[in-house]
């Protein structure tokens, strides 16, 4: 983010031009000076500057170019100065350039991976926290419904008049039908919206998804003083499905677990995330907490839409999780944990 910001305020050609100018200056100085003076070491600065505007492959190219320039000016100055020390200096310089290039490329790739993870989190949380979307849909649907009701009431009044005004009553009904259709159109748009990203189908290693999701909730775990235990089996079969959607389910279960524990002031807070082979070819993921647990009579209801046991819950998280798991041909259920807390598990069928 910061990188892009810097890039945006300076003229886009300024940094590349300065980099090329510096490389040329080093080349000239290196060529003019005696062989034993280690000017090529300054090429590392050129490589570091290129990080600002190059992709990893470009950084490698810049590093290679610097090495080539070093060798070129060595050839040009081979006649003058001490050859023995010159070769040692050149070798050290080339090693320095190569090392700098390697480290730069690695740190850039790591940054890119971190950026990718943030993007994913943004997507996951956008889909998970439906609050804003729901509020705006509710408002959009409410407008035509208010008009429907008002038109209905007006119609009753026109009919109750003495004599009844049938023309006005008919006009009110016509408006009412139009507004009801409008409300129904809005619902259809919302449906289309949620359908607009078709689930991706790929072969997924369940443990990878669990680990990737865990990396998204580090700060949540720290903030709520929760200990984390993972019990991932080695022999979990791969499953067919949508990585982001399944990540969403796991994220949702883990966030619920952390929240349940943060509401209990005492006792250990242990979040256990496990995976296992299920039904020979399928996979099972379990998320266990040490929170207050669930009342037995609620076990069936918690997956229903708009049902919530949280003081400020929407009752959507588990309902969405269930619809995702079922769309993958799996099953999700909850049970009491031992000695306390709750366990949420879902299974996914294996094979294809």
């Amino acid at each position, binding site marked *: 983010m910061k990188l892009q910001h810097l890039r945006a305020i300076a003229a886009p050609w300024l940094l590349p031009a300065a980099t090329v100018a510096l490389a040329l200056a080093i080349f000239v100085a290196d060529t003019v000076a005696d062989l034993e003076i280690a000017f090529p070491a300054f090429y590392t600065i050129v490589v570091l500057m290129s990080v600002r505007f190059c992709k990893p492959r470009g950084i490698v190219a810049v590093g290679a170019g610097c090495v080539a320039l070093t060798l070129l000016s060595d050839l040009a100055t081979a006649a003058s100065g001490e050859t023995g020390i010159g070769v040692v200096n050149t070798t050290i310089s080339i090693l320095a350039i190569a090392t700098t290039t390697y480290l730069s490329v690695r740190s850039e790739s790591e940054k890119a991976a971190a950026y990718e993870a943030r993007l994913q989190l943004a997507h996951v949380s956008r889909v998970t926290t439906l609050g804003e979307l729901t509020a705006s849909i*509710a408002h959009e649907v409410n407008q*035509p419904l*208010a*008009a*429907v009701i*008002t038109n209905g*009431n007006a119609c009753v009044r026109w009919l109750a008049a003495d004599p009844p*005004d049938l023309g006005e009553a008919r006009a009110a009904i016509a*408006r009412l039908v139009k507004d009801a259709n409008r409300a129904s159109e809005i619902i259809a748009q919302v449906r289309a919206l949620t359908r607009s990203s078709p689930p991706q189908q790929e072969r997924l290693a369940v443990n990878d998804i669990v680990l990737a999701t865990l990396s998204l909730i580090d700060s949540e775990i720290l903030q709520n003083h929760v200990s984390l235990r993972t019990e991932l089996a080695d022999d979990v079969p791969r499953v067919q499905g949508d990585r982001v959607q399944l990540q969403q389910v796991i994220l949702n279960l883990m966030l619920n677990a952390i929240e349940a524990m943060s509401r209990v002031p005492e006792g250990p807070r242990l979040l256990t995330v496990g995976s296992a082979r299920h039904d020979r070819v399928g996979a099972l993921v379990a998320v266990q907490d040490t929170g207050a647990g669930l009342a037995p009579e609620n076990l069936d209801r918690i997956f229903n839409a708009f049902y919530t046991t949280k003081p400020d819950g929407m009752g959507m998280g588990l309902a969405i999780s269930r619809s995702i798991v079922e769309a993958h041909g799996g099953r999700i259920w909850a049970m009491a944990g031992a000695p306390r807390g709750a366990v949420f598990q879902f299974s996914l069928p294996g094979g294809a």
Partner: protein
Amino acid sequence: MSETPVIYVIDDNPALREALDGLIRSVHLSVRTFGSTEEFLRFKRPDAPGCLVLDVRLPGLSGLDFQREMEKLDIDLPVIFITGHGDVPMSVRALKAGAIEFLPKPFRDQDLLDAIYVGIEGDRARRRSSAVIEALRGHFDRLTSRERQIMLKVTSGRPNKQIAAELKLSEVTVKVHRRHVMRKMKARSLADLVRMADKLADGAETA
């Protein structure tokens, strides 16, 4: 002064505008609908009692802001708020600023109509009292400066003799002026004249 009340509706949702138009006409009231406050301000309002049904969420100036703006623009209409997403603090703010009702959409038609009737009655009373003050001002403007002087002294309770002394006039002259004041102000008694003076003073304060 025309006495057929007019209800003004400002809502940016055309469907609800049409629906409210129908509902309000069904109880034989005149109604004018507007999609924005600007549209409403451009409209030349007839000289008739009325009230304003105002949506809270509007493009540009919100309904609540417009309610405050109305005072500056000298628009003295009772306001009924309708809203798709009202919360308690918002409704408290509106009612404190003098709104008659704060109705969440969808509302019961009778609730809205009741509020409208309250609004019309309030506006009628306000217009009546301002019409009375208007008439009094007209009468007062026709007094000579000497008569005004004497009216103020009479209504603050001074006897004729004292007024004559203060103004260096004969008591008879004061009596003649005083009779003129009573006639021109259409006052039936001294008490009547005192009430008129109070009303004129109130009117001067609120204007």
